[in-house]
């Protein structure tokens, strides 16, 4: 069989696992998928990204995937394959929000499990050429809820307000944080996170342009778009996810000053022990939750950090539910030093090879840095 035929037919890809969900989670899924494709026992992640809530709704309804889907080769390049004519069952769904934030999902069925991965943010972005640097919850309410009628200068041109739809995690989170009903956003539907970046970045009216995207997509496009500082209701000023607009430290997420963040959610059919029914899916999702060690060629923490996400072990706050109350979090095996090292290229933590190298204040050598536990 030719390589071309292999690339075209999803069913011929080795050990394929099929997913459906949001475009926000696609970059990190792609990076892990590339590692799995190159693993000693290869597996292929085949993923369609029509929108976050379409994934969980499809899994609940046992919808069959049809048409074409993405997969990633050993070099990490995104490829396209054709799904079986009769349709392909969904193995997992992936998105940024919890299931019950989606239209049509009143509660998660008992035979579907929710597996949570690293933290992602949701950002309001403007073109690099814009002079704007911050927005409040109330400001975003008038921009996205009213459009031109909101009179929230300079974002008063409906053709330059770039939104998604009610199935998008990015839109759901901005809806939750502002109070705009998710189905009532004004502006132009850009369909995907990358579509939003393109629309914002290429706007011919940069001062008037604004959009909403996942943080990892915003981070990957900093050459063309800039994240606005977000000031939540009752907050004294706005913060970006990072300590400065040019930093990559996610300090304001990790410490609780940036409001709009949530763990990535994966969903799959589960058995009585609440483990994914499909053992290959269990392994794949386990890499993200930390319950399963990834193949040696896949460094999950590094992938998560370089994707613009924050591993839970680097968080100092936690929350339950979408944008729930913030609480202090003390990870059992903290990785804040390693996070800083990878995300920013520097850390003030003590480097180490064993615990002997570490001070009493940070006695545990983990990933070559002295951590508190």
């Amino acid at each position, binding site marked *: 069989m030719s390589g071309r035929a292999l690339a075209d037919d999803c069913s011929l890809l080795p050990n394929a696992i099929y997913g459906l969900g949001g475009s926000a989670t696609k970059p990190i899924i792609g990076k892990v998928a590339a590692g799995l494709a190159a693993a000693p026992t290869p597996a292929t992640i085949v993923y369609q990204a029509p929108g976050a809530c379409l994934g969980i709704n499809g899994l609940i309804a046992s919808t069959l995937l049809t048409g074409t889907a993405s997969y990633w080769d050993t070099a990490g390049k995104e490829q396209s394959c054709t799904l079986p004519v009769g349709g392909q069952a969904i193995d997992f769904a992936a998105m940024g929000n919890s299931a019950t934030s989606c239209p049509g999902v009143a509660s998660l069925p008992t035979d579907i499990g929710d597996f949570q991965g690293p933290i992602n943010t949701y950002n309001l972005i403007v073109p690099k050429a814009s002079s704007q640097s911050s927005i409040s919850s*109330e400001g975003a309410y008038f921009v996205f809820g009213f459009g031109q009628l*909101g*009179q929230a200068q300079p974002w008063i041109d409906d053709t330059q307000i770039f939104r998604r739809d009610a199935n998008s995690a990015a839109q759901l989170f901005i809806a939750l*944080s502002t*109070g705009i009903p998710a189905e009532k956003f004004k502006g132009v539907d850009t369909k995907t996170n990358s579509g939003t970046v393109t629309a914002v970045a290429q706007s011919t009216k940069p001062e008037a342009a604004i959009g909403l995207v996942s943080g990892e997509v915003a981070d990957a496009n900093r050459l063309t778009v800039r994240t606005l*500082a977000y000031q939540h209701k009752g907050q*004294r*000023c706005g913060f970006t996810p990072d*300590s400065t607009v040019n930093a990559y430290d996610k300090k304001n997420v990790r410490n*609780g000053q940036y409001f709009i963040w949530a763990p990535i959610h994966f969903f799959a059919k589960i058995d009585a022990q609440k483990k994914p029914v499909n053992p290959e899916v269990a392994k794949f999702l386990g890499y993200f939750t930390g319950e399963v060690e990834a193949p040696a060629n896949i460094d999950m923490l590094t992938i998560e950090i370089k994707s613009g996400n924050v591993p839970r072990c680097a968080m100092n706050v936690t929350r339950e539910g979408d944008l729930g109350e913030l609480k202090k979090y003390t990870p059992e095996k903290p990785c804040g030093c390693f996070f800083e090292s990878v995300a920013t290229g520097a850390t003030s933590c003590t480097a180490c090879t064993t615990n002997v190298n570490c001070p009493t204040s940070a006695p545990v050598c983990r990933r070559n840095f002295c951590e508190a536990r």
Partner: protein
Amino acid sequence: MKRIAIIFAAAGSLLLGGALASACSSASEEATPTRPPVPIVTPDSDSGSDAGVDSAPVDPGCLGAAGCYKCEPVKTEEFLNACTDGQCTPFDNAARLPLFKAGQGLPPVP
């Protein structure tokens, strides 16, 4: 859902007699409050999301410069307003949003 937002910044302004600073505080910038803060309570009127922050009055001993929260944060609004050396950029709702009326709910989305 009942949602009450306390405006830390306004409380800080009352205490410190100044408007919001454009940069966040550091320990060296923190000032001693001279009288108890007067929380400004704004009932939200939007569509019932959990976006607001519920709060009790702020302990005056926990207010730092520019209204930041300098004690160990426990509640959401305390984390959001914690004193930090990170860059923070105020967005002035009253000056920039003609339809925003301080102390009143937001108008419903059309």
